[in-house]
Every structure is written in structure tokens, then in C-alpha cells.
């Protein structure tokens, strides 16, 4: 609860930054009218007065903030609908992609990292570590292009049939059978997962190695517990706990990755909406997206702190 209260000034500061950027958008909120030859200078002035745009900046910020708190981010010119509606329409697709990528990296990264820690300096460990390093250094958009080249343009052939995956969109037809949706999901989800997968597996390997060398594990083994249950019950929980912080730290990166991935794979999510709006100077939508994403990051950070305290009884927030 206290963490929630602490985040209010932070969110206010973020909103102020976003408002200032919005204020400096070329043409201001009346930009669409300035281009219209049928609207005279006096009309502009009247509109400006009617919308309260001639008031001091602090009043304009207050009324903007009030509207934002009511969920009103203004009108998106490139979509011809309110920003909130445009964003919410795209939210399910983004969530689908991000959650799939999230669990994919947690599952694959987790397994790869833990197994590597269980056999340190083995061939498997070297392979995992090297691939994790390359994965962390990978420019996401290029990786996406290469996967498209491999799977969509040419297709991987072997065992007598060709594996070809779609490279764009969320499904091919209107009725969207589940198998089609999954086919469309594979490439973007894997591209989005790559960086976090690599980071988390590297981290888990290191933290698991730390834990495996700890005294209480030697005690557990000395008590005669089977090594499998030692690893599962004693080592794993302690190695996974610090991962919560790492996951929270990589969320902004996941958001940015989703933006790039959605753009390349024509995935109809919020990120693609954002990059389309970018080309059309639709600043209300851009700011709405930024605010939305920042709130998401702040909330996830709080969630991570709470989860950390729950998982590790030594940590307490008063």
C-alpha cells in the first residue's frame, strides 16, 4: 500500500514530462484546423478560447491531468477515434504476444540456465552460455528479418515436407482457427522472447551456481536427501527469488521489443498502432501510449517488490 502511494508523485512527474512534450508538438492541439483553408484566423482564436488553450500552462496541465485520470487521452487523428478506445482495441493482441513471449522465455530460459548450472563447464554449459551471450547482443529487428527469411520466404525443408510459417498479421482468415493463430504467433513470440530468454538464462545460471555452493545445500546433502529433492526444494526457490527483480528490470525492454516486433510482423497490437501514428504525427495517440506503458512499468515494479518480499521472508517493507 505504501509503495502504491509512493508511486503517485512518480506518475505525476511522468505525466508532466509527457504533457510538456505534447505541448511542444508542432501546431499544438489545433494543428488539424490550421491546415484548413476554410477556417479563418478569428475562428482559430475563438476555438483557442473555447478550448481554454489561452489559459496559463498550469491550468491547462490540471485540466489535461483531470481528463487523463478519467481515461480521456484526447482524440487520435490517425484512427478517427478516441485514443483510449484505439489503444484498448489493440490491447488484447499485445497482451497475447507479450504474455506468450514472457512465459516462453521464463520456461526456456529457466530450463537452459538451471541445467547449465547443474553441469558447469560441460559442453552443454558452454553452448548455452555462448548462445545466451549472442542472444543478448542480437538486434531484435534483424533477428526478426532473418527468421522471416528462413521460415517465411524460403521455408525450412526436411524429412520430406517444408515448414513454412506466416510472417505477418495475427491470422489469415476471418474466422481464425486456433492452429492458424498459433502459426502466426510462433515467429513474433520467439523474436520478442529472445533477449529476455538470453538474459534470464544467464542470470539464473549464475544465481543457481551461487546457491549450489552455499553451506545449507551441503547440509541438506549431508542429511542424506536425494540430490533431486535438494535441487528442487532447497536450491531452486533461493535461486529464483532474485530473478523477480531482473524480470521487473527487463520489462521496459520487453515493451520496446514488442514495439519493434509488432511493427515488423504487422502484428495488430498497440506497438504497431504507435509506429503507424508516428509517421502521421498523431501526438495524442503517441502520448497516450507512452503514459499507458509507463504506468504499466511502474505497476510491474511495485508488483515485483511485493513479490520479492513475499518470496524472501528476510525482506520487509515497513
Amino acid at each position, binding site marked *: 500500500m505504501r509503495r502504491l502511494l509512493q508511486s503517485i508523485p512518480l506518475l505525476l512527474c511522468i505525466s508532466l514530462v509527457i504533457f510538456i512534450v505534447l505541448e511542444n508538438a508542432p501546431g499544438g492541439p489545433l494543428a488539424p484546423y490550421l491546415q484548413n483553408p476554410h477556417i479563418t484566423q478569428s475562428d482559430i482564436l475563438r476555438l483557442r478560447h473555447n478550448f481554454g488553450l489561452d489559459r496559463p500552462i498550469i491550468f491547462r496541465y490540471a485540466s489535461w491531468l483531470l481528463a487523463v485520470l478519467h481515461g480521456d487521452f484526447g482524440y487520435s487523428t490517425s484512427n478517427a477515434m478516441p485514443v483510449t478506445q484505439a489503444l484498448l482495441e489493440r490491447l488484447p493482441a499485445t497482451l497475447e504476444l507479450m504474455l506468450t513471449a514472457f512465459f516462453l522465455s521464463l520456461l526456456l530460459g529457466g530450463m537452459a540456465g538451471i541445467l547449465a548450472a547443474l553441469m558447469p563447464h560441460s559442453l552443454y554449459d558452454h553452448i548455452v552460455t555462448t548462445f545466451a*551471450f549472442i542472444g543478448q547482443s542480437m538486434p531484435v529487428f534483424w533477428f526478426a*528479418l532473418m527468421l522471416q*527469411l528462413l521460415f517465411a520466404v524460403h521455408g525450412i525443408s526436411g524429412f520430406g515436407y517444408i515448414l513454412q510459417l506466416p510472417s505477418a498479421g495475427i491470422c489469415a482468415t476471418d474466422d481464425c482457427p486456433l492452429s492458424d493463430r498459433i502459426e502466426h504467433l510462433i515467429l513474433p513470440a520467439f523474436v520478442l522472447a529472445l533477449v529476455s530468454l538470453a538474459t534470464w538464462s544467464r542470470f539464473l545460471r549464475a544465481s543457481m551456481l551461487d546457491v549450489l555452493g552455499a553451506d545449507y545445500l551441503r547440509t541438506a546433502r549431508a542429511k542424506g536427501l536425494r540430490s533431486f529433492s535438494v535441487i528442487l526444494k532447497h536450491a531452486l526457490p533461493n535461486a529464483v527469488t532474485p530473478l523477480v527483480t531482473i524480470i521487473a528490470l527487463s520489462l521496459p525492454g520487453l515493451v520496446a521489443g514488442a514495439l519493434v516486433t509488432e511493427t515488423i510482423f504487422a502484428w495488430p497490437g498497440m506497438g504497431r498502432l504507435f509506429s503507424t501514428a508516428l*509517421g502521421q504525427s498523431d501526438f495524442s495517440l503517441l502520448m497516450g501510449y507512452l503514459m499507458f506503458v509507463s504506468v504499466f512499468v511502474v505497476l510491474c515494479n511495485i508488483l515485483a517488490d511485493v513479490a520479492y518480499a513475499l518470496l524472501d521472508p528476510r525482506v520487509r517493507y515497513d
Partner: protein
Amino acid sequence: MRDTSFWVRFRRHKVACIGGCVLLCLAFIACFAHLLAPADPNFIDEAHWNGLPLAPGVAGHLLGTDENGRDLLARLIYGARISLTVALGAVIMQIGIGTFLGALSGYYRGWVDSIVMRLTDVVLSIPLLPLLLVLTALVAASSNKASLGFGTIVLIIGGLSWPPVARLVRADFLSLREKEFADAARAIGCSDLRIICIHLLPNALGPIIVQATLSVADVIITESTLSFLGFGIQPPTASWGNMLANAQANMAIAPWAAIFPGAAILLTVIAVNYLGDGLRDTFDPQR
């Protein structure tokens, strides 16, 4: 004495040394791009170009040409110059701002610290890439020019990526200011500026150098992503990112135009990361 032991320890990290060598080569290529490039990066080979990208090896183009008939190798070499300069500029700026703010907030603590740390929180909470995209779009729209200045990109990236540096330097300064040598400097009447710059800063240099190295990798990826999306370095200036922008549409007929620029980015970033990793191990007193 300290120098030799540093080199001895660093040389043990073979991959880091290789990474450093690769980077030196790239820096060399970037410096002498005008001598090394086989052609002018914007020269259109009209004699051979028939509207389609030329394949590698055709008509003397070692890596082929892009969709406009420009030599890919020449553009890659000039792209190295752009990518490395942007990275260098942005990292210097980021380290400058981050070290300054971090040192202030770690040394003086109190209200200075609160303000600086809240500011870092704010910048860190807004995902960097969308914010950069909005700002570059904003600058592009309000300057009425199609092309974004090269300096603008450096300023925007450097001006927004300093918070991790500030946090790192602050943490170092918080512990360094309590050390005996800091007390001693204070006792003989050194000014705050002198204590910060001459006594504390050199002791915090290791982590800063490591952070700077790893940041180079981040900036290269950020700049190429911006350029790929069309809001970074603008064509016709070649950058590894904007070379890939048109490659997606032509991927079926000209995969080489998509493969080489990305491979250059990947190679550079891996080299930087291995170098940074090796430096971290070398500076880390625990090892």
C-alpha cells in the same frame, strides 16, 4: 606497477582481447572509410544496375548492391563510421551527465540526492525506445526538414540514457565518501570540488569504464533500431539500421542486403559486450 598487473589480468580474458581487437579494426575502418571503401557510398552503378539489387560478386561489387544499385560494402564501411560516431558521442554525453549527477547526489546526499534520484526514477519508468521515437518524430516535424541532424540523434540518445550511470556512480560515491582518505582530504581542507574530482572520481573509474563500454553496445542497437524504423539517421547517409529498412521488402530477391548490415551490427555488439565483460572481471577486486 598497477598498469602492468591490469594488463596481465586483462590478457587472461582471451575473448575480451579478441573483442577489443575487432573493435580496433572497426575503428580503423571507420576512420579511413574514404580510403578503404571500394566506391562512393552514394554512387549508383548505372552501368550495371537494372532496377534490381545486384548479387554479391556481380560487376565487381564484392557484397552486391542495394535496391538502388549502390555498393553494399562501401555503404557498410561508411555505416561503421556513422554507427561508431553516434555511439561514441552518445556514450560520452551519457557518462558525462550520469557521472556529474551521480557524483553530486552521492557526495552531498540530502535534498540534492532526492531530486536527482527522483529524476532518474522518472526517466527510467518511461520505456526508452518509444520516448526516443516520439522525440525524434517531434524534432523532425517541427524543424520542417525531412532529414534529422546527426547531432540531434546523439543529443537525444545521450540525454536520455544516463540514469543507470547516475545510479552506479552515486552508489560508489556513497561508500567512497566514508573512506579514510576522503576524511583525510577533508581534514587538510580540500575543497569539495577537489575531493570529488581528484580523490573520489579516480576510485570510481573502473565501474564507469565498464558501464561506458557496455553502453556502446546499447547505443549501437538503439541507433540502428531508430534508423530501421525511419526516425534515426536519414538516407541517403548510410547507417547499418537504415540499410535494413528497405531490405525487408526485397528479402525474397536480395537476401544479402538484409544479411550483411545486421551481421555487422551483431558482430560489433558481441565484440563490445565481450570486451565489457572482460573489463568488468579485470576491474572487479573480488576476482
